[in-house]
């Protein structure tokens, strides 16, 4: 609750691009108003518990964004209409909603893949992967999804 409040004030100040006392007070009023009008269930966030892992995850994502961006562009230019894709089932490694949602979002951020469906009860991600042309590449896409999940869990999942 407090951290959400602080975050909203920070976003407010970033939007204005400056910080004087009046602006901070106004931001506090707006943030309080938002929290009162749109209450959200509390989520126990551990985003900042292991900062070095978080930085590692960030760098990995930037690299992933560039590499798979080039791959999707290449697939589109090289194969065009004859491009192949796959819908693969991958086990969900965590049982925390917060971690699962983060993993799904980060997975869908990079080019080439997105989460088509999540079966929460059976704990399965159904992932659409573009540019998959052989059984070996299906396995590699599945390993990528598992690897990303492990990184997210290491960054802010429950240990163990």
């Amino acid at each position: 609750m407090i951290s959400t409040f602080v975050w909203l004030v920070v976003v407010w100040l970033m939007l204005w691009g400056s910080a004087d006392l009046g602006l901070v007070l106004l931001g506090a009023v707006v943030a309080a108003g938002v929290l009162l009008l749109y209450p959200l269930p509390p989520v126990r966030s551990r985003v900042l518990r292991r900062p070095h892992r978080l930085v590692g995850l960030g760098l990995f994502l930037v690299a992933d964004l560039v590499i798979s961006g080039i791959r999707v562009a290449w697939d589109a230019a090289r194969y065009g209409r004859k491009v192949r894709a796959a819908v693969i089932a991958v086990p969900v490694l965590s049982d925390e909603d917060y971690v699962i949602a983060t993993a799904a979002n980060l997975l869908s951020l990079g080019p080439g893949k997105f989460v088509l469906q999540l079966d929460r009860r059976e704990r399965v991600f159904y992932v659409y992967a573009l540019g998959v042309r052989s059984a070996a590449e299906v396995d590699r896409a599945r390993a990528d999804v598992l690897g990303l999940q492990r990184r997210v869990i290491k960054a802010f999942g429950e240990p163990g």
Partner: protein
Amino acid sequence: MNVLSAVLLLSGALFCVLGAVGMLRLPDVPSRLQAATKPQTLGLLLILVGTALRLPPSYAVGLALVALFQMLTAPVLSQFLGRAAYRTGAVDESTLLCDDLKSVRDNDAESGSASPGA
């Protein structure tokens, strides 16, 4: 600094063009969705960084917000659109090498139970 900024702006624009090429060349909704949303995200980030280098820091902060919200919203959008496309049959099944979701869907249809994860 100017050179770096120019390189970032141009490569950002290049990724946006590649996304547009993908839109034209790819066959069905989910694959086009990839081309439409993903290289653009990277392209926009590069353009924002390139622009931020040339602006006073107080403006650059606003650009960081643009980048943050782009990265938070783009994946949600592509998940929703992709799911809607799959469910309405807008996926060209001949492009799929394998479809692990199909058997689940068919089983559900036969047993008459609710669709999974709805």
